[in-house]
């Protein structure tokens, strides 16, 4: 553990720390952010009314729309002269959202990333290849500062130029790889083309995140890249990567609770759920100064567990995220996450890990087309052989999800590869 005192802190003491920090956060929001002052007053509540952690349930939510409406600096709780870094999310669905960090925030974030890297088997002696994008996206710089904080060697290669990534791994003896899981798979494919066997490399672990991925995909990555794969979670609004991380138990991601207060809520009613129940994940930041957030709705679906973990960390664990509420497809009334389809595909032996889902509406009926690349294992000179694969995939998905899909076999490499977040779903419906 990077910070055993905090990471394995007795839960009662941890809760005392959280309460103290919660009050301080709400106080700063109330005093410094007009948006929050108004929201709190509308609810007739002040930081002074917070006496227990449960009182968080009385606080107002913050949504992505609130961030957009207060673009760019409306939610900052300090004057811009105290902001030392700005990140922004891509504005693909409207205005971008902007986040600001004070120098203390950058310090805290670096420590959380150092803790995450250490949970993912890294230490001072490691060479860490950071293939997350550097720039406005928090992935690259988040990992970079964490790696330096830890004292390991950072290779700030950023995303893209896959052949160079592989050559660097070979030449520099990279031991820890950080990127999106879909990019890791693409690297495996590229290395294979280059005639490079991952078994000859020094990679021991990979820290993958920024998109939901299944346990089956983990098996595939671990097998193809010959490393131990860890899931890291975060979102730029709350901090960036390093909000939670898997430990060696790989049984949920520990949320760094000294910095974030987590809840799950019922997405429809907003009602807070008891621990263990699946719902939308909500975070209140506890020691963030540039842009503190109260009850930020992540739209990620998961459940929490405060059962003791064999690794010794006392912080609650969240289950791996199956998908965002806004990634969720409603197909003929059935809720479907792309990751569920991925799970089915990954457990069929011989299937290429690249897939795409095309959603369409024909005559008022939703249709999902699952495009799968034909691998050599699947291919046969007989049409019947190929049709049997189509039927197998179709029936596996149908028995798992309870919805019929159309399976389309595609030529190898015809599905676009991603060097960052993979585009898994193309929704052509006009909803």
């Amino acid at each position, binding site marked *: 553990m990077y910070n055993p005192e905090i990471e394995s802190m007795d839960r009662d003491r941890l809760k005392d720390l959280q309460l103290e920090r919660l009050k301080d956060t709400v106080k700063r929001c109330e005093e410094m952010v007009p948006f929050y002052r108004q929201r709190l007053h509308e609810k007739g509540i002040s930081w002074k009314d917070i006496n227990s952690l449960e009182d968080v349930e009385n606080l107002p939510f913050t949504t992505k729309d609130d961030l957009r409406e207060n673009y760019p600096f409306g939610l900052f709780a300090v004057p811009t002269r105290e902001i030392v870094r700005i990140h922004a999310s891509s504005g693909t669905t409207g205005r971008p959202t902007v986040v600001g960090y004070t120098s203390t925030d950058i310090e805290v974030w670096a420590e959380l990333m150092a803790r995450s890297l250490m949970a993912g088997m890294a230490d001072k002696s490691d060479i860490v290849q950071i293939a997350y994008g550097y720039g406005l996206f928090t992935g690259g710089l988040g990992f970079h500062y964490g790696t330096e904080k830890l004292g390991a060697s950072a290779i700030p290669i950023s995303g893209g130029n896959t052949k160079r990534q592989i050559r660097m791994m070979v030449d520099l003896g990279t031991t820890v790889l950080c990127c999106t899981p879909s990019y890791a798979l693409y690297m495996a494919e590229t290395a294979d083309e280059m005639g490079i066997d991952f078994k000859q490399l020094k990679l021991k672990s990979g820290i993958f995140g920024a998109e939901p991925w299944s346990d089956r995909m983990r098996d595939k990555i671990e097998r193809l890249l010959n490393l131990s794969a860890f899931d890291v979670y975060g979102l730029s609004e709350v901090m960036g990567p390093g909000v939670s991380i898997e430990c060696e138990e790989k049984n949920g991601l520990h949320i760094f609770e000294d910095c974030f207060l987590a809840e799950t809520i019922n997405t429809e009613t907003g009602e807070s759920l008891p621990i263990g129940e699946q719902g939308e994940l909500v975070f209140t930041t506890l020691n963030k100064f540039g842009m503190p957030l109260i009850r930020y709705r992540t739209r990620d679906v998961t459940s929490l567990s405060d059962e003791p973990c064999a690794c010794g960390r006392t912080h609650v664990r969240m289950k791996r995220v199956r998908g965002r509420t806004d990634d969720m497809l409603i197909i003929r009334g059935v809720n479907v996450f792309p990751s569920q389809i991925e799970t089915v595909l990954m457990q069929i032996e011989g299937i290429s890990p690249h897939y795409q889902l095309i959603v369409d509406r024909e005559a008022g009926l939703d249709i999902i087309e699952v495009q799968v690349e034909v691998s050599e294992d699947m291919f046969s*000179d007989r049409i019947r052989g190929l*049709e049997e694969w189509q039927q197998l995939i179709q029936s596996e998905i149908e028995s798992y999800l309870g919805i019929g899909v159309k399976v389309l*076999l*595609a*030529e*190898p490499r015809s599905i676009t590869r991603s060097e960052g977040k993979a585009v898994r779903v193309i929704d052509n419906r006009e909803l």
Partner: protein
Amino acid sequence: MTTVRQISVFLENKSGRLLDVTRRLGEAGLNIRALCVADTSEFGVVRLIVDDPHKAHEHLKDQGFTVKETVVIAVEVEDSPGGLSEVIKPLVEQEMNIEYLYCFLEKSQDKAVVIIRVEEAEQAIGALNVAGFRCIPPEELYAM
């Protein structure tokens, strides 16, 4: 061994894909002896007899196609009415299931060549030989 090697290529039903395959083979100096396309509404499989199956396999694979080599039989038949049914007869009598077949004409003679795909190739060759047919050895077929 009188079995011959056929290569098969997976194609999406998109315009220009067959052209791509044939052009790639041409570029590599590979000559197509026979070709047959099987398709559904969504995809197709093109099956080819070429003068150098191994080279064709490697070349197309390098170009990113999904390729497979399969063992098939090439039988010489008279180019006359009823010729094909005479070939099929001994196989049916042996209760062998023909997956598919296609034919082409020999340039220099009045003969046709039938390419047959069955599961039990050796057994089929035996049955055809007993019935008096000649199975064309690979070197001869590729050089036709």
